């Protein structure tokens, strides 16, 4: 046998492509060439594989060895082809029976001593292999957890090349010391939904209402108020109100997290909506994704089907914040680089929090704002109009000391989550024949055509529109929010009361009953 092939997986974004790893051993002076558009980390595989093969007690062929990765036009990057290359080589050299690797995909990076190191994106790679009809996949021991999440494919974990070879030869599998997990590049607190409950929040009737409505309909949210008033506290409790992820979503979110290196070894599927809170100094690439070579998902993709919370939003660079506009509309982000184009899902709920002004006291009764009008104007402009326009719910959050006296004991997360679930079930039922599941996802024209509001509601909104208090986009957004409020109330269709509340939630006015409503003069936004 002088020619052999094995299979591995190349990732472009989240999409896996099966890569054939061929090894040819020909007459000629000892030399190893690696072809098929490898990048530097992959070119180094030559030396890693050579050392690993020799140190695993195997013979490295003393001939001209050519290793080809095909399709040759697909740029390949990363070190996870090592094990496939080693096995292809050893099969070509006759050290492994060529039959046993049929319909088996192989991923893993080799250490010089023959240990197999963990790789990123094992979940997406396993998914690709399973979809391509492979029966088995060999993965690094540390990636077994996530790879096993994929149904319909047998997963073998190995700690070293010796173990894989023993497995293929049917001999006794040697013991190896457990591998040391690579240090995480991200702190785990980023991905865990904070274990907090809504009943910790005292008062904040309007704030609670805002996050309940946001969770129920998937609406973007803007919370502003003086420092220490509880904006962060409320935002952190938002993800807890959302229902568990569906199976498909869960697999998709897990695949993104695997690629981002967020999954731990004992990985289970990500079942809860993720809560991602990047600091306001986050760079553009870290937010939307990018990188050269292997494209990585950014924070917005890690927050897919969950919450992206940006505290102190006006402190973020306006250009960075504005990059969110397009994914906010489309639900995905396409990253174009010279090497490849990657598409990552990014359907997240955006929650922005801000102080009312640089000193934080504007609009409060406790203190006197010391900011100059110019300061104030500049501060408010840092969140651009297009972004603000996409925030369906705006709420001012005032310190609890003032609002705590409102009475009634605070509701717990479980109680509110049950209402949210019921509201989501209603939406799922209403949109069962469409591609959408949430009020916030429905295109305006479809909603207006299939689910028109009643006369009184329409008149109310048209009044606001003519008075300039509502933009055309805002109009549709209020209608969506209106439906969410009706779903929360368990109504078959919204009445003018929900429409009124939806308008107030969006415009940022204090919530007042409809009967008290006196149309404001002039535009409010």
């Amino acid at each position, binding site marked *: 046998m002088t020619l052999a092939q094995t299979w591995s997986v190349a990732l472009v974004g989240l999409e896996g492509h099966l890569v054939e790893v061929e090894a040819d051993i020909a*007459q*000629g*002076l*000892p030399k190893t060439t690696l072809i098929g558009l490898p990048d530097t980390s992959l070119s180094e595989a030559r030396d890693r594989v050579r050392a690993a093969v020799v140190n695993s007690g195997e013979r490295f062929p*003393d*001939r001209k060895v050519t290793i080809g990765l095909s399709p040759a036009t697909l740029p390949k990057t990363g070190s996870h082809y090592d094990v496939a290359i080693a096995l292809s080589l050893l099969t070509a050299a006759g050290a492994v029976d060529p039959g046993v690797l049929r319909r088996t995909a192989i991923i893993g990076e080799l250490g010089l001593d023959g240990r197999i190191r963990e790789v990123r994106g094992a979940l997406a790679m396993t998914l690709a292999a399973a979809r391509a009809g492979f029966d088995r996949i060999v993965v690094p021991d540390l990636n077994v957890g996530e790879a096993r999440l994929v149904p319909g494919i047998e997963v073998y974990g190995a700690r070293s090349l010796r173990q894989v070879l023993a497995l293929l030869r049917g001999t006794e599998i040697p013991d190896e010391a457990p591998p040391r997990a690579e240090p995480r590049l991200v702190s785990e607190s980023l991905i865990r939904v904070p274990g907090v409950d809504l009943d910790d929040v005292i008062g904040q009737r309007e704030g609670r209402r805002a996050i309940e409505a946001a969770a129920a309909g998937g609406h973007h949210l803007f919370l502003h108020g003086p420092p220490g008033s509880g904006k962060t506290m409320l935002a952190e409790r938002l993800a807890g109100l959302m229902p568990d992820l569906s199976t498909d979503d869960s697999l998709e979110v897990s695949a993104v997290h695997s690629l981002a290196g967020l999954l731990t070894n004992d990985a289970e599927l990500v079942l809860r909506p993720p809560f991602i809170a990047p600091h306001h100094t986050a760079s553009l690439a870290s937010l939307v994704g990018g990188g050269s070579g292997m494209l990585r998902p950014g924070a917005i993709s890690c927050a897919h089907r969950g919450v992206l919370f940006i505290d102190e939003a006006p402190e973020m660079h306006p250009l960075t914040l504005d990059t969110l506009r397009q994914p906010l509309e489309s639900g995905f982000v396409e990253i174009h680089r010279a090497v490849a184009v990657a598409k990552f899902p990014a359907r997240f709920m955006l929650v922005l929090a801000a102080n009312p002004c640089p000193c934080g006291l504007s609009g409060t009764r406790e203190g006197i704002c010391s900011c100059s009008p110019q300061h104030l104007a500049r501060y408010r402009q840092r969140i651009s109009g297009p972004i603000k326009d996409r925030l369906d719910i705006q709420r001012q959050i005032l310190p609890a000391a003032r609002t705590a006296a409102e009475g009634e004991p605070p509701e717990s997360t479980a109680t509110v989550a049950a209402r949210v679930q019921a509201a989501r079930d209603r939406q799922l039922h209403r949109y069962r024949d469409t591609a959408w599941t949430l009020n916030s996802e429905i295109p305006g024209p479809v909603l207006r055509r299939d689910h028109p509001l009643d006369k009184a509601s329409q008149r109310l909104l048209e009044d606001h529109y003519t008075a300039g208090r509502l933009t055309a986009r805002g109009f549709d957004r209020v209608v969506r929010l209106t439906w969410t409020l009706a779903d929360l109330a368990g109504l078959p269709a919204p009445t003018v009361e929900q429409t009124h509340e939806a308008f107030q939630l969006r415009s940022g006015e204090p919530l007042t009953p409809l009967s008290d409503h006196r149309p404001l003069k002039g535009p409010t936004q």
Partner: protein
Amino acid sequence: MRTSNTVGRYGEDLAARYLSTHGFAVLERNWRCELGEIDIVAREGDTLVVCEVKTRRGLNYGSPAESITYRKLATLRKLAGRWLQTHELRPAEIRIDIISVLFDRNTPPSVDHVRGAS
């Protein structure tokens, strides 16, 4: 020096014996000119084979064949040309082969024949 000469000489003997038992006709051994030396000149059918024999006593410094550099190959090519100039033979093809001989402790010496090194 004496040791390596003895080892090298023994390796070349082994290589020559290997070639004759594998259908080669050994034409000349240790042919020299001012460019250098050809260890073995042999003939396989219509092909002239210029053979470089490399002998080692262990793999600590890599396999014998690995020590053949590009420069050494170029020299062998020149030597092959010079050999043809001085002989009356007109082969259809010329090939440069490497034979690496390995004496490892406790095991019989092994001969590895790389056909067509360039």
